[in-house]
């Protein structure tokens, strides 16, 4: 499989999913969370949260972020990147539209974000600087070659 095909395969997988786990850090202390996401054609990830949430506050101080998206017997994708706040109001609403579409992928899924209350949302874009996939389709107990593939994002 060439690079373009690898990218399409990973993008297809990421588009079939809608929940990611993230890890952020402040003062050398990691924190993780689970979030609804949208991913664009360039592998930029987007998510919304409350401005006063721990992840938002930590990311505003330290934009380094790590992501994992996983599906049993299919694939895991790991991404490291840099988060930045989307400040333009129209851009923010356009991303919220995309996130609402992502929320449709899960039948009966209702974003926990909406249960928390408050409307001071912050939207982040994550620009990836490293991405790799782990093939989980094989059912052998071990394998000769590495199941990891680094995807060159150019």
């Amino acid at each position, binding site marked *: 499989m060439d690079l373009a095909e690898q990218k399409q395969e990973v993008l297809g997988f990421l588009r079939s999913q809608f929940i990611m786990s993230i890890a952020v850090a402040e003062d050398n202390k990691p924190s993780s969370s689970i979030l609804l996401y949208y991913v664009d054609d360039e592998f930029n990830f987007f998510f919304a949260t409350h401005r006063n949430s721990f992840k938002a506050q930590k990311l505003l101080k330290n934009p380094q972020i790590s992501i994992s998206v996983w599906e049993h017997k299919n694939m895991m994708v790991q991404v490291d990147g840099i988060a930045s706040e989307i400040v333009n109001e129209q851009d923010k609403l356009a991303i*919220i539209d995309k*996130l609402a579409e992502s*929320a*449709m992928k899960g039948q*009966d899924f209702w*974003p926990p*974000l*909406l249960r928390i209350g408050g*409307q001071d*949302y912050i939207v982040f874009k994550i620009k990836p600087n490293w991405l790799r996939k782990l093939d989980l389709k094989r059912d052998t107990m071990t394998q000769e070659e590495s199941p990891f593939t680094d995807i060159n994002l150019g």
Partner: protein
Amino acid sequence: MAVILFNDSDPVFNRVVKLKFQRELNWEVKVTSSYDEAYNVFLNSKPDLFMTEIVLNDPQGRTVFDLIKALKDKGLKQTIVLSTLGQDSDKKSAKELGVDHYFVKSEISLLQLLEELKKILAN
């Protein structure tokens, strides 16, 4: 196809509700987030049902009840409140002002709401 006008100032909430209603029920859903927007969209789309949050951050100090009264003058038939406010006094005020159904966000799931709306529109 039923047309619903949904008014809520929360941009995430109203977008998710719009898509869920459209996908699950094949209804046309218009979403607005203010008094003036809701009033104008109502005049242009004449929805079968108006569903709104009570909390309306209107710079001119108008309440959602002012909006409902104004829309009733323009032919509004059915009004549903879907609100974070769930006190008896809120429900009583809504009833007195002609709100047909009152649902509290923290007491109802999306699926329950969809079922309630289907029943309301069937009658």
